[in-house]
């Protein structure tokens, strides 16, 4: 067998958002780039089995809900009928469009794309198992962007097709009558939102004492209240002990506050987090340190312990978010090209595309308390926002935290329909070092949901007129 040897100035392992961004940036900076992707299409989990297809389903869910809720206000379409194969085809057409777009960008930039699974064989070679054999790539510098995979719980019956991970759930094969979501984090709740709209009876089980752990409780509450009514059950501080496969369904055994001993479900979605893929690439043969969990430690320039090998995205640590990976990918490519880049962002915003959406950035109130930081807080209720009321919704909130002494923005969060679209202004304000006054003096168009951010700042500066706050 002849082993082909290929040379790459920059080798990028993994074609997800972080990987292709790194490859494109490196190519734009004049590097000869080889990009390795194990699947036939680029875009990774995010584009193919994550962010994008889930947003398609969530949009469908939103339409179903809005139509349903508007019946009370005078528009009645009747009960919707669902054509699952058609919804699925529409969802797939979106990913396909984006896949093709990426393939075009690869060609335009003259990046060499190889489909296959890569394993390091030395600090400067990588063997790619392709359909036709093994290709060895000798690289000057490399960027590892191999991402993560859904955490599997070993004792669960993973060979049972009714036990899903997020990828299975997005395939939209069927709408189970009774769906249990194990894990009340962002991924689990987004899937719950979609399947609830499609007609499943949803139960959620979460180990911690709140859904979306890590987010401030006041921002979660409006979501929690709404889904508590919509869903069959939400069990907090509850653990799934075991799952048994039965012909009539999956029998799930619980342990915790208020949960039954066991209950039968037609499908169970396990969304208890993701594990980094650092252990799957023979990193040790390149001398790269990979920790127990599979994470690869990097410095601010995304450099691993091996100076000419970089790592980005999910495999270097939490939060496992595409926008973090993209930013890191560009940093790695720029450092390789000799620019003095480093990961210097002050915050990585988070968004849960639930209904209502929940989003936050910068310091959370929990963190401020833990770190003993003195802050001023303002929470503007969307019940006072004309725009929100026109959407038929009033549960939303916009919260900001500012440094007590200087008024400088420390953190912000929103909950409400389209909240995810509002957080960017807060991120920009944080990066620019804006204080409450800067935000309140910035004219926000009326009536928008975005102006609630300005209103919250006005609550801090004491200039708000849209609310009456007793002195």
């Amino acid at each position: 067998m002849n082993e082909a040897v290929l040379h790459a100035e920059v080798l990028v392992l993994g074609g997800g958002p972080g990987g292709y961004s790194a490859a494109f940036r490196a190519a734009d900076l004049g590097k000869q780039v080889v990009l390795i992707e194990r699947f036939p299409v680029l875009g990774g989990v995010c584009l193919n089995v994550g962010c994008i297809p889930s947003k398609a389903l969530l949009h469908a869910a939103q339409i179903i809900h809005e139509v349903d809720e508007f019946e009370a206000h005078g528009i009645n379409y009747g009960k919707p009928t669902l054509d699952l194969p058609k919804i699925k085809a529409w969802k797939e057409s979106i990913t396909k469009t984006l896949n093709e777009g990426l393939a075009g960008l690869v060609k335009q930039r003259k990046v060499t794309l190889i489909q296959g699974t890569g394993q390091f064989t030395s600090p400067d070679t990588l063997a790619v198992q392709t359909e036709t054999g093994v290709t060895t790539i000798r690289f000057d510098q490399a960027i590892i962007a191999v991402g993560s995979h859904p955490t599997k719980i070993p004792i669960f019956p993973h060979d049972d097709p009714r036990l899903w991970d997020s990828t299975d759930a997005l395939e939209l094969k069927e709408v189970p009558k009774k769906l249990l979501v194990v894990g009340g984090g962002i991924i689990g709740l987004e899937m719950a939102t979609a399947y609830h709209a499609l007609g499943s009876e949803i139960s959620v089980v979460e180990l911690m004492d709140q859904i979306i752990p890590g987010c401030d409780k006041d921002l979660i509450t409006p979501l929690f209240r709404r889904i508590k009514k919509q869903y069959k059950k939400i069990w907090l501080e509850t653990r799934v002990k075991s799952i048994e496969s039965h012909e009539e369904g999956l029998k799930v055994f619980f342990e915790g506050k208020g949960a039954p001993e066991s209950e039968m479900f037609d499908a169970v979605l396990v969304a208890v987090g993701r594990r980094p893929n650092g252990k799957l690439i023979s990193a040790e043969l390149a001398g790269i340190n990979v920790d127990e969990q599979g994470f690869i430690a990097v410095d601010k320039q995304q450099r691993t312990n091996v100076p000419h090998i970089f790592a980005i995205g999910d495999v270097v640590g939490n939060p496992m978010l595409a926008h973090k990976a993209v930013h890191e990918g560009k940093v790695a490519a720029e450092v390789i090209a000799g620019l003095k880049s480093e990961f210097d962002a002050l915050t990585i915003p988070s968004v849960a595309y639930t209904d209502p959406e929940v989003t936050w950035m910068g310091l959370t109130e929990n963190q401020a308390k833990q770190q003993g930081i003195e802050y001023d807080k303002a929470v503007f209720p969307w019940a006072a926002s004309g725009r929100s009321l026109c959407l038929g919704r009033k549960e939303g909130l916009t919260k900001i935290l500012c440094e007590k002494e200087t008024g400088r923005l420390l953190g912000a969060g929103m909950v409400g329909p389209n909240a995810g679209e509002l957080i960017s202004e807060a991120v920009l304000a944080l990066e620019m070092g804006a204080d409450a006054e800067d935000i309140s003096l910035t004219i926000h168009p009326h009536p928008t949901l975005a102006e609630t951010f300005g209103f919250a700042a006005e609550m801090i500066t004491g200039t708000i007129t849209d609310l009456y706050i007793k002195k």
Partner: protein
Amino acid sequence: MTVLIEIKVPDVGNVAEIDVVEVLIQAGDIVTLEQTLATLETDKASMDLPSSVSGTIQQVYIKPGDKVSEGSLIATVLASTDQAVSPAVPEAVVLPVVAPIVEQRPEPIQTPVIAVTEVAIIESDPSSRKAHASPSVRLFARELGVDVAKIKTGSGRKARILKEDVIKFVKKVMAAGVVASGAGIPSIPAVDFTPYGETETLKLSKIKRLTGQNLSRVWLNLPMVTYHDEADITDLEAFRTSLNAEKLKGEVKITGLMFIIKALVAAMQQFPSFNASLSADGESLILKKYFNIGIAVDTPNGLVVPVLRNANTKTINELALELAEKSEKARLGKLLPADMQGGCLTISSLGGIGGMAFTPIVNAPEVAILGVTRAKMQPVWNGTEFVPRLMLPLDLTYDHRVIDGAEGAKFMALLKQNLSDIRRLLL
């Protein structure tokens, strides 16, 4: 069946750079096991690199003049799998040149370890969080190596740090750091002496400041060795005294220094590396075909080094006259730059003052300097008895990148011989 085998530079001990001297193969060549592929050379040894397999050379990755290191790819060889393939690391046949045989070890995967932050949710550095600067300004600061947190207030709205503030900060730092401190070396902190008593501040002369900068630069750049010895100048001194007795009043007297210059030039003629300079890139030696000797002269304003040109062609009387003139000009501050340029080797004589030995600093780009202190009458064992001999202490400092220890000692031995018996200068 054939496989592609990579032949790499084996572990040759802790050597960062190995020169490729000769490459004996090209693509398409058929090589046999143990056939020499290339000759490599380190600063300690040269070695032939044998092939670890038999087969056809597919590609050669090195050429003469390349610098390689352990693990560098030499060539790929297409070999058939049915032959026994020897270990991936070829055994190098080491031909010792100077150093002992380099020990052979299997090649471990060695990668430098750098400090990395722990895997965690990304938390930015609190210092940059404090700085009131936008991302583009932070990038700009980073490009210039400025810690934005050190810029206390900016000139923008609400003291926002702007690009101009970063530029101003850099200018300020540059202006403060311009005084003679070597780049990257921590400067000596300022000390307030007033609590300890009265002080007075004197401005250094320009010569002193420039000399200081030059000496610091040399001190940091040159690995210097100083070698001490003594020359028996009893006969020389007797000759010199008799010569000066013949001189008329007002004629320039001959000093011992003139003989030292002559003896030194004669030694330099036999050891060309002492009459040389290292090229700026440190890759080659520039040998000089002229013999200009610098003489360090102490003046009220500081140290200057007038140069006596073509000392090999001048007589002792001519040299004595020329040095007397130049020393006088130096003391009056009238030396021209041309009078101080073009030196090949410098003599720093403290002969008139005393001392036993000292370690002069090389006047780079020269490669050596000769220090001289006062000659002393000493009892010297001649094999049967102690005899009084006039001994002249000599201190030879040289740039060890150019001159090695044995060469320095041989040079000094010749210099001593020349001074002990100046008849040799005629040879």
